């Protein structure tokens, strides 16, 4: 995967397949040395301990069409390449929390990519899921909650083109506000 936005797009498919209707995406900058932390929290069906242990193995998947799954191993590789790691916590029936950490200043850290577009697409394709997006850094913080937006929209679909465009622009502004000058890669 070329950038973090593609990993997010990919990993979230696991949450969706696990039947989640609440997904929280958090991206924060913290600590010294500064780490970029991606955390995806869902309320899907969860995994037992044995499955978590096997999940970073490319030959493990819950899919039935084929018996290989590369999403999580690829994310783990991207994190390790940048001096970070991948951590998964889950319990059957209680959802899953996945955390990937990257050393921001590591030369091999993948760029953020087009996160606003990724999130727009995820919301567009899964309008019934309650999404919360949380961005933070020592500079600032940003939050977007689709339940709150739906409340303001008052019956107008969240998949309306203009609404989606608003969401994309708002997240774009959020990224500029929170990471501007830190990650140095927002165009």
């Amino acid at each position: 995967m070329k950038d973090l936005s593609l990993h997010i797009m990919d990993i979230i498919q696991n949450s969706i397949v696990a039947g989640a209707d609440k997904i929280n995406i958090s991206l924060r900058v913290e600590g010294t040395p500064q780490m970029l932390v991606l955390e995806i929290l869902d309320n899907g069906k969860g995994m037992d301990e044995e499955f978590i242990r096997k999940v970073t193995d490319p030959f493990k998947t819950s899919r039935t069409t084929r018996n290989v799954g590369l999403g999580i191993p690829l994310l783990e590789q991207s994190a390790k390449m940048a001096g970070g790691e991948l951590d998964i916590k889950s319990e059957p029936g209680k959802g899953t929390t996945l955390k990937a950490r990257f050393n921001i200043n590591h030369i091999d850290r993948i760029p953020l990519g087009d996160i606003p577009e990724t999130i727009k697409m995820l919301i567009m394709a899964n309008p019934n899921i309650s999404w919360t997006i949380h961005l933070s850094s020592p500079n600032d913080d940003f939050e977007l909650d689709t339940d709150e937006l739906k409340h303001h929209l008052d019956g107008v679909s969240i998949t309306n083109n203009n609404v989606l465009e608003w969401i994309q622009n708002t997240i774009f502004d959020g990224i500029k506000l929170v990471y501007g000058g830190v990650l140095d890669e927002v165009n």
Partner: protein
Amino acid sequence: MKSIEELKAIRDKTLKEMSIRDNEDKVRIVVGMATCGIAAGAKPVMSAFIDELNKRNINNVSVSMTGCIGICRLEPVAEVFDSSGEKTTYVKLDAEKARRIVAEHIVNQKVVTEFTVGAAER
């Protein structure tokens, strides 16, 4: 948040226009968005579908994503479900091909045979 006001303006404008377009038949475009699809470039394809539909002001077509369809070697893959339920599977897509599918299949209702799975597997 200041821009919530903008969102409300969008809502009010949309509510006014809604009655005109809500009774049309729905066409669905489904893009394969599993690891294989994303690695092969499914995101720019989906983005091109959305952009082209918006540009042409087409509102009765939904774009969504699905997992692995099982033909990873032919990714990026998208399926178009017509209002009659007829399915066309397009393979080895890129942004340019996605735009042509909107123009020819969605607008002119003519399947772009050269991009279909049938043509690729011949």
